[in-house]
């Protein structure tokens, strides 16, 4: 990065003037670099948000489990107590607590309405289990519960947690793949534009060779131009992309809705700032390669 910057600053204004200005193609390069940067901001937001969700869901869900005690009324309290005793001696359980009738009524309210008399129904008792960060041995716990508390069913959420976390991880992967594709397309686009510029300026190159310009000097006139265009275009695209992300509607619990959580958080706001220099680096490399190839074919 520093090397590129130094090389760019080193070349004098005269070297820039030897290649005639090109209005329309220059604007196309700017536009394309800008669009790519804009897309890159979104891909980045998607990747970072998906990554955040995958981690969050993975952690939160992995650390909580539920035990359902479905037993005849007279045994329910005894079985609940038995289950709680087992949990107290289970490794990896930080906290276990039976939900009160009120809490269970609140959980059921969305489904049955608040008028429901819980006592009238054989509602199983729920025990909320919070695991330590090390996690617990769910299979072992299941065996112990089966032996001592016949009415207990352990649900460690892994059944529905798995696919969600997997989907979020996959989304993150796709986001990063998109960013790589965007970089590759930027490189392809700059290469095409540079090749067009080199072809259009064949006479300029011939004259420069004749008067003793080295390949480096000639290549640099083109490299500098395309690198700066990519840098400026990408900077504009990045700013617009970040404004768009900033004004995404948000709210609600992030775990509840993926869409409202799409965006950057904290230091992640700094990550898109890498897009313009990266675009410049890609343009630098692409133009350099194109110029080398063209120049080596000339006498």
């Amino acid at each position, binding site marked *: 990065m520093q090397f590129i910057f130094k090389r760019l600053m080193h070349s*004098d204004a*005269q*070297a820039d*003037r*030897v290649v*005639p*200005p090109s209005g329309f193609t220059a604007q196309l390069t700017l536009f394309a670099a800008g669009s790519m940067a804009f897309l890159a901001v979104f891909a980045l937001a998607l990747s970072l948000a998906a990554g955040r969700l995958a981690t969050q869901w993975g952690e939160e869900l992995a650390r909580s489990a539920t035990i359902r005690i479905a037993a005849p009324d007279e045994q329910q309290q005894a079985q609940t107590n038995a289950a709680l005793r087992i949990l107290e001696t289970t490794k990896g359980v930080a906290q276990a607590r039976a939900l009160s009738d009120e809490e269970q009524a609140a959980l059921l309210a969305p489904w049955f309405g608040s008028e429901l008399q819980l006592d009238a129904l054989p509602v199983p008792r729920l025990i909320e289990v919070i695991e330590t960060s090390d996690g617990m041995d769910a299979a072992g716990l299941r065996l112990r519960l089966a032996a001592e508390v016949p009415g207990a069913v352990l649900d460690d959420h892994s059944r529905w947690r798995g696919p969600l976390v997997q989907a979020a991880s996959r989304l993150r992967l796709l986001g990063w793949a998109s960013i790589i594709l965007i970089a590759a397309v930027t490189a392809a686009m700059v290469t095409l534009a540079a090749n067009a510029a080199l072809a259009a300026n064949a*006479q*300029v190159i*011939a*004259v*420069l*060779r*004749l*008067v*003793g*310009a*080295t*390949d*480096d*000097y000639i290549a640099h006139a083109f490299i500098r131009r395309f690198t700066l265009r990519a840098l400026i275009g990408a900077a504009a695209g990045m700013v617009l992309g970040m404004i768009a992300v900033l004004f995404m509607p948000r709210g609600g619990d992030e775990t509840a809705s993926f869409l409202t959580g799409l965006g950057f958080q904290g230091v992640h706001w700094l990550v898109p700032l890498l897009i313009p220099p990266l675009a410049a680096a890609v343009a630098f490399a692409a133009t350099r390669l194109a110029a080398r190839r063209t*120049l*080596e074919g000339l*006498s």
Partner: protein
Amino acid sequence: MIELENVAYSYGGGELLSDISLKLAPGSFHFLTGPSGSGKTTLMKLCYGALLPTAGHVRLFERDVRTLTRDDVALLRRRVGVVHQDCQFLDHLPVAENIALPLHVSGRSAEAQGEDLSDLMHWVGLTERATATPPELSGGERQRAALARAVIMSPDVVLADEPTGNVDWDMSQRLLRLLIELNRMGKTVLVATHDLSLIRATKSHVQARVLRIANRRIQLAGADL
């Protein structure tokens, strides 16, 4: 300076030049003549490393051209001023900048502002056209601008390929006088031309040798010119 030893050059099919041996000593003035299509331009290009011989050896400043890298060739061209028949410029830059271009590309931009440039512009009579762009120049002005550009680096050798190609007699006389002046300043000069009357007109002013390409070979032309 420039040495060709049993050089041959062929374009795809037949051989254009064969068994050419030639030595341009420092400070010499040579004419190169021959019918058009005989290989004058090709021979010139061999002399500044634009073409590599298909056989034999070309030595420029004591170095075999085959051993030169692309950067070596670029550096070599700063010591060899070349004027083409159809001289090309950077059409978007004014004449003065075009003439100073060799200074810029060799990192000596500072000198481009100096008096040397204005002296040179005066010498080729282009002072008043300094801000014009090359497409606005007449044929003769282009040739003189090309000559000025060829000598601004104070090269050891000046190669001029049909420098009087598109100009009238008076102008070609003027150009030749400029080349003779350069030769008097110690430059090695090689001028390719098919115009024998030009050679005759010049011979009275300078000790020039005439090389003629005939039947793919080079001969030293005698006094019959």
